[in-house]
């Protein structure tokens, strides 16, 4: 299945792109997606402990099971206000 990934704020600079797509086996978790992304975009791996992850518009953690067509967002701590 194909998962679209969007990088927000300075994560886009670190990733070298604002969006990418990743092909994963069915019922892959967010954790598996991250392993794949950290291999292809190693600069993001250093920030994994402060990385926030959303699927669609909801926060999810590494155990969350993805579905084909999901949009995943990775971003640094938020700074509104």
């Amino acid at each position, binding site marked *: 299945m194909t998962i679209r990934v969007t990088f927000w704020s300075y994560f886009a600079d670190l990733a070298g792109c604002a969006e990418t797509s990743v092909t994963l086996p069915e019922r892959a978790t967010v954790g598996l997606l991250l392993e794949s992304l950290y291999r292809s975009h190693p600069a993001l791996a250093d920030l994994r402990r402060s990385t926030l992850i959303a699927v669609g518009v909801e926060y999810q953690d590494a155990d969350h099971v993805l579905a084909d067509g999901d949009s995943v967002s990775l971003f640094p701590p*938020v700074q509104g206000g």
Partner: protein
Amino acid sequence: MTRSLSITVDPIAEPALVSGRTLSPGMGAAVSFAGVVRGLEGSDPITALEYSCFVPMAEHQFHLLFDRLAERGTVESVRLVHRIGRVAVGEASLWVEVVSPHRAEAFQACQWLIDEMKRVVPIWKKPLRD
């Protein structure tokens, strides 16, 4: 609980927002907060902040926070405006107003909303020095 949310590139028109406030007869307290871009980010002078936002998620997360305020049953109205894009020093990036029967609730809810926003709403800022 009535709620109004605006994520906008336009300047925040505080006087007009204040003029637009409506209160039912049981309400006794309106607390509002304006967050203004400071001329220093850390110790470096800046000219503006550039705010970026994942808008659909920001709207969703704001409404989850509003839901939690509504559950308290003590807030009659919340209005929030977050400006995005370039916001110059001295201009407001955030305006929040909470209306409640009593002031302690209104102060607490307004601060809670801002604290939670800074934890979960996907908005980021970048200092500009041009």
